[in-house]
């Protein structure tokens, strides 16, 4: 492996470049005109401009990315997360061009990308799924009949959806009727398919996921869990491991279930099995992310491993560097996603970062996509950095995080950093007593 093209931007592109350079691998960055001055463009061995700022003219331009990969004669492509990372056609085209795709097989991406098919696959493998339709709904009558059987409230979801887009909570039949057509048409616009299904809405839910890793020799291991229940608009804000909520017996059961799920699809490379957990610790398969996760540094902090390095080794056909008995979790880690947004109304706040001074706490890893003086443009995700704190205990990492954010100063744009201090000062959060509605319900008043 001599040269890798990174089909992404911002902090994750920088993160991948870091590991590649450590391994003596050259990197090719691709970037849009809006990202010309971004740190990842400067950090790469070489950078290629692939188009105008909007994502559909640059980072989603499969043809241009493939052309750059061929032109630059790369050995592999790392897709990061988002953008083309879960586009099975992209993966297939890369492989057909004789280039390694750093991720699972295109067939696995395709299977897991369809929420209905993946649900059926998991059910067949004996993995618990949320009670629901399990297939696409044909009519509103069918939707209402089924929702009546399952019991309200229900979630109406787009089969092709993910990342919180394309799902609506329906409290009763009236709400379901009202949302049905608009959810379908939205799904068509966003995901190219208007197929929708319904699932029982789990109240007081927690979102816990398990990191898994597979190789082409058939080995599959888990790398522990991440509790991602602190969310806004169904998007994660804070993630931690171990989960402060799960009991040890359920945790072990969840790991075994995740491995069973990964084995059912002969999973290769890094993947994440997301579970929704109810207040009685019953857990159900939600979806599988067939890529490196934004919050992977939490796992790296507790395991001491470099997941990007593992991804590259496995993509080359090598076996997993460690097997289950050799993988250990140490201490507690928590990640905070710093967004360029108003901390109260959660609205985006693009602009120039005129000051960026991080706290100087030891044991804090900062994966930032931006530097002081950089500009956050309105074209992409508002996340500007991830701050990952590792401590011997949860108490220690929360204290470190608090000291870190108290001494972090950002000017020019609004960020959600003040929200982190509010979360860290909250008694329920300190006690690990929080669900996915924490940010919307607990902190608003």
């Amino acid at each position, binding site marked *: 492996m001599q040269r890798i093209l990174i089909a992404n931007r911002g902090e994750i592109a920088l993160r991948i470049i870091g590991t590649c350079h450590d391994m003596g691998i050259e990197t090719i960055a691709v970037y849009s005109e809006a990202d010309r001055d971004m740190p990842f463009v400067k950090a790469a061995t070489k950078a290629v401009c692939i188009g105008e700022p909007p994502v559909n003219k640059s980072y989603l331009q499969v043809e241009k990315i493939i052309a750059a990969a061929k032109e630059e004669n790369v050995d592999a492509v790392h897709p990061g997360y988002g953008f083309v990372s879960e586009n099975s056609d992209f993966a297939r085209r890369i492989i057909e061009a004789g280039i390694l795709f750093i991720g699972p097989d295109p067939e696995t991406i395709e299977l897991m990308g369809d929420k209905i098919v993946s649900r059926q696959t998991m059910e067949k493998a004996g993995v618990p799924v949320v009670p629901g339709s399990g297939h696409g709904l044909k009519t509103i009558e069918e939707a209402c009949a089924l929702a009546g059987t399952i019991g309200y409230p229900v979630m109406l979801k787009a089969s092709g959806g993910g990342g919180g887009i394309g799902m609506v909570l329906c409290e009763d039949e009236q709400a379901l009727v009202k949302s049905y057509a608009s959810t379908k048409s939205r799904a068509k616009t966003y995901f190219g398919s208007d197929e929708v299904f319904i699932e029982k809405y789990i109240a007081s839910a927690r979102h816990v996921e398990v990191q898994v890793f597979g190789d082409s020799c058939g080995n599959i291991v888990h790398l522990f869990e991440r509790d991602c229940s602190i969310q806004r608009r169904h998007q994660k804000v804070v993630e931690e491991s171990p989960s402060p909520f799960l009991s040890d017996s359920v945790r072990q059961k969840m790991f075994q279930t995740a491995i069973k799920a990964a084995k059912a699809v002969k999973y290769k490379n890094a993947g994440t099995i997301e579970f929704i957990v109810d207040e009685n610790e019953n857990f159900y398969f939600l979806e599988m992310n067939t890529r490196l996760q934004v919050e992977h540094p939490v796992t790296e902090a507790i395991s001491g491993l470099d997941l990007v390095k593992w991804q590259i080794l496995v993509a080359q056909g090598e076996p997993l560097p460690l097997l289950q008995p050799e993988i250990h979790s140490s201490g507690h880690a928590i990640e905070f996603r710093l967004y360029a947004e108003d901390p109260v109304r959660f609205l985006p706040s693009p602009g120039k970062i005129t000051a960026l001074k991080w706290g100087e706490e030891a044991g804090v890893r900062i994966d930032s996509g931006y530097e002081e003086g950089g500009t956050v443009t*309105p074209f992409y995700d508002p996340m500007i950095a991830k701050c990952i704190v590792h401590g011997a205990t949860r108490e220690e990492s929360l204290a470190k995080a608090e000291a870190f954010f108290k001494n972090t100063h950002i000017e020019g744009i609004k960020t959600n950093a003040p929200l982190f201090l509010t979360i860290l000062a909250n008694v329920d959060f300190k006690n690990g007593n929080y669900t996915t509605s924490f940010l919307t319900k607990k902190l608003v008043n």
Partner: protein
Amino acid sequence: MMKEITASMAGTVLNVFVAEGDQIHSGQEVLMLESMKMEIPIESGIEGVVKEVKANIGDFVNEGDVLIVLV
């Protein structure tokens, strides 16, 4: 008197909910912007009749750009 509805932030026009000649009330959602992967509804702060829709679906607009002109 000419009245204008402007973009509250930079973004791409995702949807326009009104057309020329529509009567609009204050607080009505008239347009949906997408900025940083988020949907940002634009509400009219005033009432009036739509004289011109200046923004088309897919257009990129900057903060302060005129989206809709009312009379």
